[in-house]
C-alpha cells in the first residue's frame, strides 16, 4: 500500500522540482555598467521586422539594452502587459493607440513603427476583390467586406478609400475575419472583398485577384503602427526610454536601407517561406514619426465614430 501511494507522488514531485527551476524571471533595473533587461511586446508579422533586425545587428546591445521580444496575438494583448509593467515597450497600430489615448490609458509613443509605401499600386496592405465586375472602391457599397477588427485601422481605411472614390462608406457592410482566413472566405464567396496585409496580399494577387485600394490611398505617408511605453516607465527610467528610442530609430533606418536583411530576418520569427519572403511588398520604415499622418488617422477615427472627440495627439506622441 505504502509503495503504491508513494511511487506516483514521488515521480510527480521529482518532475516538478526539476522543472520549476526554469520559470519566467522578471526584468530588473540593471546595476551600473550592465545592460538593462528589456522585454518588448510585438506581433509576429512583417511590420515588426526592424526591431528583430536591430536586435540581430546588435543595435540594442550598443545602447546597453538586452532585448527580449515577446509576441502576442494583437495590440489588445500588448497594451495591458506594457501598462502593468510586465513588458517595458510594445508595438501597436495607431488607431488602437489613439483609442487608448482617448480613454486616458497611461501610455506614450516612443518610436515610429511602419508606414505605407506611398505607392497606391504596390503597398503592403490593401482591398482585394475576386469579382472582376468590381473595379473601383465605390462599388463596395452594399457589399460585404472583411476586416481584421471592427472600429479599427483597417475598416477606417476602407471607409476612407470608398469615400474618396465618391461612395458612401456607411453602406459598406463589414465583417470580422482574421487575416489568414480571409482568402479562403473570398474564394468561397462568403465575402465580396477583403482587406489583407502581407504575406497574404501578395498571395491574393498571385491568384489573379484585383487590388482596388491600398493604405497609400488613405495617405501616401500613412503611419500604420508605433512603439510605445507606459508613462510609469518614462517617469521611473527616462534614460532607458531614451536609449530604446535611439536604438529603435537606428534599427528603423537600418531596416529601411537594407530590404534584403529585412526579408532574411522575417524567416527567423515568422514561418513565411523563402519564396514568399522574396516576393512580398515591405512597408516603409521611416525613422521619424509623421505627425500629420497620425493626426489624419485621429480625424478619420472621429469622422467614422470610433471615438466621440479627437484625442490629444500631441500628448500621445513624444
Amino acid at each position, binding site marked *: 500500500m505504502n509503495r503504491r*501511494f508513494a511511487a506516483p507522488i514521488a515521480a510527480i514531485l521529482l518532475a516538478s522540482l526539476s522543472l520549476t527551476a526554469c520559470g519566467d524571471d522578471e526584468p530588473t533595473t540593471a546595476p551600473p555598467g550592465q545592460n538593462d533587461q528589456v522585454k518588448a511586446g510585438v506581433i509576429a508579422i512583417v511590420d515588426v521586422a526592424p526591431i528583430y533586425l536591430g536586435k540581430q545587428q546588435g543595435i540594442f546591445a550598443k545602447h546597453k539594452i538586452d532585448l527580449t521580444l515577446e509576441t502576442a496575438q494583437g495590440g489588445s*494583448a500588448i497594451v495591458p502587459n506594457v501598462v502593468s509593467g510586465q513588458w517595458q515597450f510594445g508595438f501597436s497600430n495607431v488607431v488602437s493607440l489613439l483609442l487608448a489615448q482617448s480613454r486616458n490609458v497611461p501610455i506614450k509613443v516612443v518610436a515610429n513603427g511602419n508606414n505605407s509605401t506611398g505607392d497606391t499600386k504596390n503597398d503592403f496592405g490593401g482591398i482585394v476583390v475576386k469579382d472582376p465586375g468590381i473595379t473601383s472602391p465605390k462599388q463596395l457599397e452594399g457589399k460585404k467586406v472583411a476586416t481584421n477588427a471592427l472600429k479599427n485601422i483597417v475598416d477606417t481605411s476602407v471607409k476612407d478609400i470608398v469615400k474618396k472614390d465618391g461612395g458612401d462608406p456607411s453602406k459598406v457592410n463589414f465583417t470580422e475575419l482574421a487575416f489568414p482566413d480571409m482568402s479562403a472566405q473570398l474564394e468561397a464567396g462568403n465575402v465580396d472583398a477583403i482587406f489583407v496585409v502581407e504575406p*497574404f496580399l501578395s498571395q491574393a494577387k498571385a491568384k489573379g485577384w484585383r487590388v482596388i485600394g491600398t493604405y497609400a490611398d488613405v495617405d501616401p505617408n500613412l503611419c500604420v503602427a508605433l512603439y510605445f511605453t507606459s508613462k510609469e516607465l518614462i517617469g521611473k527610467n527616462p534614460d532607458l526610454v531614451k536609449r530604446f528610442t535611439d536604438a529603435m530609430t537606428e534599427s528603423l533606418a537600418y531596416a529601411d536601407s537594407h530590404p534584403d536583411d529585412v526579408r532574411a530576418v522575417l524567416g527567423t*520569427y515568422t514561418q513565411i517561406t523563402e519564396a514568399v519572403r522574396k516576393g512580398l511588398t515591405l512597408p516603409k520604415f521611416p525613422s521619424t514619426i509623421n505627425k500629420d499622418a497620425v493626426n489624419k488617422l485621429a480625424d478619420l477615427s472621429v469622422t467614422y465614430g470610433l471615438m466621440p472627440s479627437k484625442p490629444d495627439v500631441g500628448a500621445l506622441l513624444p
Partner: protein
Amino acid sequence: MTNATRPGPARRTGIPPRLLGLLGLAGFAVLIEILPRVGVLPARYFPTTTAIFGALADYAGDSRFWTALGQTLRTWVIGLTIAVLAGVAVGVVIGAVPVLRALTASTIEFLRPIPSVALIPLVVVLVGSGMSGTLVLVVYASFWQVLVQVLHGVADVDPVARDTARAYHLGFGYRVRYVVWPTALPYAVTGIRLATAVALILTITGELTIGTPGLGKLMDTAYNSGLEAVPSVYAIVVVTGLIGVLANNATRAAERYVLAWHPAVRAELPA
C-alpha cells in the same frame, strides 16, 4: 503484456485488434491524401497527408519546434502537478470533514462549471501572457477534475470500515492512509486521467490565444505566415494529437500499475 491474448470482438476476423486499429489509421491517412488531390477538399487550406508530414519533417530539423515542444510539455506537467497535489490534498481534507464538505459544496458547484477559457482576459491583465498565465488556466481547469473525483471517493468509504477505525481510535493520519485512501484512490486516478487531458487542452489553448511560448504559439505563427505555411499548422495539430495519445496511454498504464490490487483492474485480466 497480456493484451495481445485478450479476447475481443475483432477475434472473429483473425486479425489482432491492434493491427486493425493501425489499418484504420492508415486508411484515414490515405483518405486525407486523396480528398484534397481530387478536389473534394481545397488543397490550399486542407493539405494532403504527405504535405503535412513533409512539414513535420521540416520541423524535426528546426530548433524552434523542439523548444516549443519542451515549453508545452513543461507548462503541462507543472500545471498538472499543481492541480493533482492540490486536488488530492483539498479533496481528502474537505471530504473527511462533513462540516467542511457542507460549507464548500455550493461554492465548488459554482466555481467548477466556469470554463477556464472564460478567465483568459482576466489572466492576461492580472498575470500576463507568460507561462504563469497559461498555468493559471491549466491548474484551474484540471484542479476541479481531481477534486470532485477525490470528494466522491472519500464519500464512498465503507461505513463499517470507518466505524471500525473510529472504534479503534485511529488518528486522522491513520484513517486517511488505511481507510480513506484505498477507497478514494481509484477515483483519484480517474480524476488524474481526466485532468491530464484537460491540462493538455488548456496548455495549447493558452499558447494559442494568449501567446504563451509553446506549440500553440508556434502554430499561431505558422497560421499568420501565409498560405504556404498551412501544412505546418496541420503538422502541429498532429503533434498535439500524438502527445494526447501518449499521455492517455501513460495514465492508463499507471492506472493498471497503481490499482493492480483493485477488482476493477483485476477483472480485466483473462480468468
